[in-house]
């Protein structure tokens, strides 16, 4: 009897699965798959990003679509786990006529998808994260680390510190510690920092923190003993607020701490409040932008009509803006592709790749879309998939983030040779022939 019920339940479930798996064909809609993590250890940071991403897609639809082409989207929750992220990718890539572009917001998933995306011919945008060497579009045809990479962030961090010290020569003998999430994400900047340490003679200390980063007593004990002049923080999620609390407990000045943009948002500092006052973070382009026009549009067109995603207060926060701008870059890639392959048509992944490779967002266009004061121009090419390396520093004043520096640009002379070297090694390992400038013109 029990067995029969079990068999019955199993077959019912199988029927459910097969119908759940059947994709519903929808014509004339540009499908944006959305990989999100609203749960798990990194959920508090993943949620605003996802809300911003989805809100922008909704905003484009509210404004009439991309030249009349409406956007459809579907979320898939992966909880920052690489294997589930890959499963989500496989699930969504073929739905509704094929995914336009994937943005995983996870360095681990980016690594896992880099080869799969090339086979499936779907571009991978990693706005501000991912593999640093993938800015070389000749080797990484399908990766787009738009708005800068970790190497850009690390490079500007050193430039900013040098400025404070009165020049790069004054860095000699200084101690800089990198407190990093012990994963490919946290390890990315090490290569660049080592290069810079060699150039300027500062002493680099590497202090790894194990996932998820709530246990940092030993790390901060080392900082207390060694007293580094500056601390760079490459953390994510709960690790960031823990670091700042530990700094407070150790008495390490927060003014001397610089986080990458993953460690420079409201969830990281809010709980610490006053204790985080003076803490700095590098913003790859934008910070918190509650006064920008695009935010006002979102509030008016979506939240005003009860169609917004997530709480209203979140609109304009750092991670929300990151999601919103990430979506904008994907949408602009589609718009650019339409200029070549036919306006008002649904673009394939391959066509979108061309669009992303020829992205030309000048200041006028950005201002027109409501990003005045938020972003500086982004211009990509076949060989440069990054498009911009503008960075500002912002500082937490106990209640909100304020910009505390001018615009910086990463030093091409330092980064370019490293990019060429690492991507060349990758091409050799994978037996990829880099594209020549002639092939790019096609």
């Amino acid at each position, binding site marked *: 009897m029990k067995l029969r019920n079990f068999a019955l339940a199993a077959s019912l479930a199988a029927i459910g699965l097969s119908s759940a798996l059947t994709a519903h064909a929808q014509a004339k809609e540009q499908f944006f798959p959305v990989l999100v993590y609203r749960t798990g250890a990194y959920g508090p940071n993943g949620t605003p990003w996802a809300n911003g991403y989805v809100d922008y897609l909704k905003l484009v639809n509210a404004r009439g679509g991309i030249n009349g082409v409406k956007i459809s989207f579907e979320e898939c929750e992966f909880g920052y786990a690489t294997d589930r992220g890959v499963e989500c990718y496989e699930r969504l890539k073929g739905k509704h006529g094929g995914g336009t572009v994937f943005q995983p917001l996870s360095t681990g998933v980016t690594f896992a998808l880099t080869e799969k995306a090339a086979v499936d011919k779907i571009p991978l945008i990693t706005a501000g994260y991912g593999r640093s060497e993938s800015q070389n579009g000749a080797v990484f045809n399908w990766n787009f680390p738009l708005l800068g990479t970790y190497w850009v962030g690390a490079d500007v961090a050193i430039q900013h510190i040098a400025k404070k010290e009165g020049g790069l020569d004054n860095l000699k003998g200084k101690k800089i510690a990198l407190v990093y999430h012990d994963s490919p994400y946290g390890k990315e900047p090490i290569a660049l920092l080592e290069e810079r340490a060699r150039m300027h003679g500062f002493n680099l200390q590497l202090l790894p923190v194990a996932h998820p980063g709530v246990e940092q007593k030993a790390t901060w004990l080392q900082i207390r003993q060694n007293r580094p002049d500056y601390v760079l923080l490459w953390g994510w999620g709960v690790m960031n607020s823990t670091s700042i609390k530990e700094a407070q407990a150790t008495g390490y000045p927060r003014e001397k701490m610089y986080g990458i943009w993953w460690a420079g948002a409201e969830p990281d500092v809010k709980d610490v409040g006053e204790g985080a006052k003076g803490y700095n973070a590098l913003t790859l382009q934008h910070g918190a932008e509650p006064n920008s026009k695009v935010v006002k549009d979102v509030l008016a067109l979506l939240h005003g009509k009860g169609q917004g995603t997530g709480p209203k207060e979140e609109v304009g926060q750092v991670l929300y803006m990151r999601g919103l701008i990430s979506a904008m870059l994907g949408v602009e890639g589609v718009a650019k592709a339409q200029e070549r392959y036919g306006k008002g048509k649904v673009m394939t992944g391959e066509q979108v790749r061309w669009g992303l490779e020829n992205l030309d967002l000048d200041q006028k266009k950005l201002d027109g879309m409501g990003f005045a004061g938020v972003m500086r121009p982004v211009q990509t090419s076949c060989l440069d998939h990054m498009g911009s390396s503008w960075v500002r520093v912002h500082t937490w004043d106990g209640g909100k983030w304020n910009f505390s520096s001018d615009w910086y640009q990463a030093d091409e002379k330092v980064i370019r040779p490293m990019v060429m070297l690492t991507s060349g090694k990758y091409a050799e*390992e994978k037996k990829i022939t880099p594209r020549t400038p002639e092939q790019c013109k096609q």
Partner: protein
Amino acid sequence: MIYRENGQFKTSYKTDQQIFPIFQDRWTILALIAFAFVGVPMLADEYLFKAILIPFLILSLAALGVNLLVGYCGQITLGAGAFMAIGAYAAYNFAIRVDGMPLIAALLLGGCTSALVGIVFGVPSLRVRGLYLAIATLAAQFFWDWAFLRIKWFTNHSPSGSVSISNLDVFGWRISTPVDKYLLCLVILVVFALLAKNMVRGAIGRQWMAIRDMDVAAEVIGIRPMYAKLSAFAVSSFFVGVAGALWGFVHLGSWEPAAFSIDRSFQLLFMVIIGGLGSIMGSFFGAAFIIVLPIFLNQFLPWLGSLVGLSISVATVSHFEFMIFGALIVFFLIVEPHGLARLWSTGKEKLRLWPFPH
């Protein structure tokens, strides 16, 4: 009525000692394998291959390995993830450092390395047992997690610590499409499952089971505990290591130590416990339960919601997924503490009597 062995007389030792002495079992299994080789590639789509079938096959292999050690020899291990990692990283190093290393050789060498390390970490089992041994194997997990994160040589000095492998081929057969990958995993799994089944029926398997049931008594009747325990560690680590190499090479393509974290070790142990300790079939059931069920729930719940006109957010679905999954584990452990494999054999018992149960 259909499943009844009446009239199947064994007239020689050979027929009596074959793997599946019952005619119906033999043909069911053969039909199942034939279906897996011929039918599945025709029916399944890419998503099913990449997201469900390939992970299922590879983790079944790993669960099989863990089952040999935990289920048959009674040595609890919490280091299975580490041995997967050793298999993957060893195979990776063999593949990139030795020119022209064939894929199968790299996989097997990865397994052998893992077996050697398994023997070393099996040594404590000669002195401690039960929960204490579990802690000792936990040391393997932490040590190798640390080693693959910190020792740059293992990852070929890759700046991010993530390694990747591509261009797989076996004797000129390019493994590129999901079907190729599936078939490769399936071939390896079938061969290894056959090996395992024969091993546990043979002398060595009987030694393991004797050690599991009572090691003092086993020693009295002339079984050397050192040999039995260490061989169990070696064989188990070999299986797990090959599975780890496949996981890295075939399923992920590029990986980092987090792919083989402590969670993976627990996952494998749960597979074995839920599937059935000391049962080859149970390893497959356990792997299917742990791999397929969460993904199934994740897609089934929104569909169920849409039936009654509810749209459930992905975050809620994911919370429900954890709750239902946890509840089901508890349910199965209460209803069938001997695992899903026991459910299977109960089913067979019932079939024998059907349609006239007494």
